[in-house]
C-alpha cells in the first residue's frame, strides 16, 4: 500500500512565524503535491514537484514556498504565517505510470492566531 505521511495532524502557530509542513511518501513516486482545503472551495493546488529539486506553482502559490531535496520528501514552507493561511493542508504523491492517481496523506490542520 502507498503510504503518505505528514509530520503533524494539528498545528497552531502565531502570525509572522515561519512554518514548515513535511510530507514523506514511501512508494518512490516522482510527483508530489501540496493542496489546501477550505470549506466550499474543494482542494486548491499550491505547488507540485515532478522531480527532486524541481517545483511548479499551482493555482495559489502566494505566501508559500516548497523544497524537495530528496525524492521521498516534499516540504511546504509558510515564510511568514498569516491568519488567512489557517486551513487544512493535504500532501499527495503519484507515479508517472499507470493511472497517475494521487494518494493523499492524512492532512495537517493549521491554525494561525
Amino acid at each position, binding site marked *: 500500500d502507498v503510504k503518505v505521511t505528514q509530520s503533524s495532524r494539528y498545528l497552531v502557530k502565531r502570525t509572522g512565524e515561519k512554518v514548515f509542513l513535511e510530507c514523506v511518501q514511501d512508494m518512490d513516486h516522482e510527483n508530489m503535491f501540496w493542496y489546501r482545503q477550505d470549506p*466550499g472551495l474543494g*482542494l486548491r*493546488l499550491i505547488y507540485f514537484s515532478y522531480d527532486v529539486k524541481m517545483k511548479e506553482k*499551482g493555482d495559489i502559490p502566494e505566501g508559500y514556498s516548497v523544497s524537495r531535496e530528496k525524492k521521498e520528501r516534499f516540504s511546504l514552507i509558510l515564510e511568514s504565517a498569516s491568519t488567512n493561511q489557517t486551513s487544512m493542508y493535504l500532501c499527495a504523491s503519484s507515479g508517472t505510470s499507470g*493511472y497517475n492517481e*494521487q494518494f*493523499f496523506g492524512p492532512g495537517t490542520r493549521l491554525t494561525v492566531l
Partner: protein
Amino acid sequence: ELKVEQNPLFLSMQEGKNYTIYCNYSTTSDRLYWYRQDPGKSLESLFVLLSNGAVKQEGRLMASLDTKARLSTLHITAAVHDLSATYFCAVGHWLSFGAGTTVTVRA
C-alpha cells in the same frame, strides 16, 4: 484554465433510494477521478475513468464518463448510512478538483 463543477454541493439522501452526483469540466481531458473523504479524514481514491464511455462499479457506487459531454456521474444505488461522506471529482493530468458534494444519508 480547467474548471470543474460538481452538483449538487449538498445532498441529503434517504436510505434505500437512488441518487446521482454530476461532475462537469470545461476542457478536454482523458481521465477523471472520484475520491471520497470522511469527516476529519484524508481523501481515498474510488474510481479512475480513462476513456469515453468508461463505467466502473464498486458496491453501491457506479461512476461513468462521457468525454464528449465533459461529464461524469457518480450514481448511488439504495443509499445506506455508510455512504455519508464528501465526494470529489478531479480532472486532468495534475488534477483540478471540484468543490465536493457532501452526502448525508438519513433513515
